[in-house]
């Protein structure tokens, strides 16, 4: 975000509508004397003003209700009046950006039945080995674990629905169309997946994705048909988008847990106050894993939080948290709504959620809480396709 006033207003209005962002923007016109001053002022403003409600980002669409990234999950999310719908982008053999979370098809499609021979020596089916036309022969299914069991047992039944893999262009067209018919400004929240891995294979996720966005006028921050946010785990990708492609779209640095092997980056360092200051050079906000923020209950039964949201706020960063799931709450949280409220209270600006029809209730509201699942039940093979369910 810089000089261009119109762009700023639009951006701020659409997304970074926290007072922090406004403060930041204002100050860029009248530079303060030191970084510390910015931080101090930001914190002050953030705590003094009344903050708007957190934004709702439909995580892979309304994925709690329909298979992730399917047309059904997208349309439902739109009808639930979310602020953003998330698209994860990987590339096909013919360089088409498609909306899928993993670089392999194993856990979310019936690929094993349709193309039994097209697996690599590691027994996985890579999106990159299929053309877009071939992918259309597959049906999307509710996510399975490596053991073949449905990841979230109470969600959409396997083998139903004949839902197809969608290209990024198809999702964009659908969102823009629904925005028009429903009179909304629902945005796209796009994650560039495994960019380095694609690069090693001779595929450029950034270039292909931005090319599609450009075709729909979604790269000119001064005149966007709908809000767009770009997110990535790899800081180099965000830096390239900013400095090489010169885009002024809001950029969110996703912060992983080092154990997921998302990249060579030390995410633990990123979570420090100094790390957040550094991010500010290229990112507008951070995407934090809920476990990086909420630490569980103390002996008195009080929720404990890390300092990371404070650090991010002090650095002038917007904070979005992934992923809220009504059917898989972290230990100690009695309900989805309670968790939402806790995180909202400590300053979180937005949530990736599988259940986007469940926004924060008023504090006094109480709902029947869904059964709480053991949060330690995480998925395998994170290193290869960021398959951890907590990674967004």
């Amino acid at each position, binding site marked *: 975000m810089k000089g261009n006033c119109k762009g700023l207003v639009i951006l701020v209005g659409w997304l970074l509508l926290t007072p922090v962002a406004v403060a930041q923007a204002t100050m860029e016109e009248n530079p303060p004397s030191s970084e510390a001053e910015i931080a101090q002022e930001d914190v002050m403003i953030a705590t003094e003003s009344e903050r708007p409600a957190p934004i709702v980002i439909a995580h892979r669409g309304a994925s709690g209700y329909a298979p992730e990234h399917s047309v059904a999950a997208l349309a439902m999310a739109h009808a639930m009046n979310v602020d953003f719908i998330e698209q994860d982008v990987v590339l096909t053999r013919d360089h088409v950006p498609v909306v899928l979370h993993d670089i392999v098809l194993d856990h979310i499609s019936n690929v094993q039945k349709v193309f039994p*021979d*097209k*697996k*690599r*020596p590691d027994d996985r089916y*890579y999106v*990159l*080995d299929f053309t877009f036309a071939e992918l259309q022969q597959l049906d999307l299914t509710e996510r399975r674990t490596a053991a073949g069991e449905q990841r979230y047992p109470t969600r959409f039944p396997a083998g139903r629905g004949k839902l197809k893999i969608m290209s990024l262009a198809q999702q964009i067209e659908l969102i823009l169309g629904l925005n028009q018919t429903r009179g909304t400004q629902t945005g796209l929240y796009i994650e560039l997946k495994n960019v380095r891995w694609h690069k*090693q*294979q*001779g595929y450029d996720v950034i270039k292909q994705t931005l090319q599609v966005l450009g075709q729909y006028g979604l790269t000119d921050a001064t005149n966007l048909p709908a809000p767009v946010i770009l997110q990535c785990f790899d800081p180099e990708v965000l830096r390239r988008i900013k400095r090489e492609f010169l885009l002024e779209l809001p950029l969110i640095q996703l912060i992983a847990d080092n154990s997921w092997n998302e990249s060579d980056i030390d995410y633990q360092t990123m979570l420090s106050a100094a790390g957040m200051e550094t991010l500010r050079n290229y990112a507008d906000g951070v995407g934090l894993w809920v476990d990086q923020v909420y630490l569980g209950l103390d002996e008195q039964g009080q929720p404990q939080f890390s300092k990371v949201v404070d650090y991010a706020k002090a650095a002038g960063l917007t904070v979005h948290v992934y992923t809220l799931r009504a059917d898989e709450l972290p230990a100690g949280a009695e309900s989805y709504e309670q968790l939402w409220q806790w995180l909202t209270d400590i300053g979180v600006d937005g949530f990736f959620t599988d259940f986007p029809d469940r926004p924060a209730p008023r504090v006094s509201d109480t709902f029947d809480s869904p059964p709480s699942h053991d949060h330690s039940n995480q998925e395998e093979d994170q290193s290869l396709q960021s398959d951890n369910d907590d990674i967004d």
Partner: protein
Amino acid sequence: MHVAKRSAELIGQTDLLRLNSLSDLTGCDIWVKLESQNPGGSIKDRAALQMIKDALARGELKPGMTIVEGTAGNTGIGLAVVARSFGLNMLAVMPNDQTKEKERMITLHGAELVTVDPVPFKNENHFYHTARRLAEQNENYWWANQFENTSNARAHYLTTGPEIWEQTQGRVDILVSVAGTGGTIAGNSMFLKEKNPDVQVWLADPDGSGIYHYLKTGDYVSQGSSFTEGIGIMRLVENFRLAQIDAAVNLPDDDLVTLSRYLVQQEGLVLGSSSCLNVAGALQAAVLHGPGKTIVTFACDLGERSASKLYNPEYLAQRGVRTEPEPIHSLIARYRQQGDLVWYRNP
């Protein structure tokens, strides 16, 4: 690890190395069988040993006699190694345009070396005819004749093929090989197809060779030329006749430069020019038939034997071959597009 009483016993039982970089790029398992580990530094040691063993068994060859062979080099080196083990002498006839590295290896092994000018096969002074004539003129000489002597293919039927089958645990889908005499591709294809008729056998043919054209049309016609040595041929010979080939591709020297540099950089592997052609063929097969295929090819000899040509920028420039490698992704993109250039036995 083997313990041997003579170097000939160390021939064979070579290792299989996965080319991780190209495997990852294609989603296949691409393996090279390191024939450079043979005592004479090349796959030709196997043929040399089998030809000598069979000739001794038939009584054609007796200790004290001299083996004569026309060779591009590696068979001469192999025969020299084995000859010593069996108390035989060796006389190699080579065209004088082969790398000096190979000439040196032959004389270092105590063999006698005669070099002749490189001439077309129909010329009586061709190294092949020269070797034959020398053998005919001296009854103490035995002509190995690697082209027509099918002990050559038998070596691979008896040793290389079974090793590949065992090392891949029967999973080999595609075998890729260059051909000179055709012994390697014949013996391996015979064995592997006996084990599994679905194994695909691919021939990689350099510019200047007529095999690709022969398979396609029945005539030996060639275009251009290649710096590869001892592979490609313009006539049908007995060993090649035994080969069961399913697909063939003709690839230019430019691609060998690209792949040789890539493998040095990615795998720390210095391959000779025929080995690079093998890898290029394996890459072509992987790109068209992957993912998931187990592909085996050969590092035919030591890369340093190609130092003065493949790895010599002045030589490459003088031949009009590229000196800088093409980016690997560009090569792969090209290979994806050139499927129609591949000859298939059953299209």
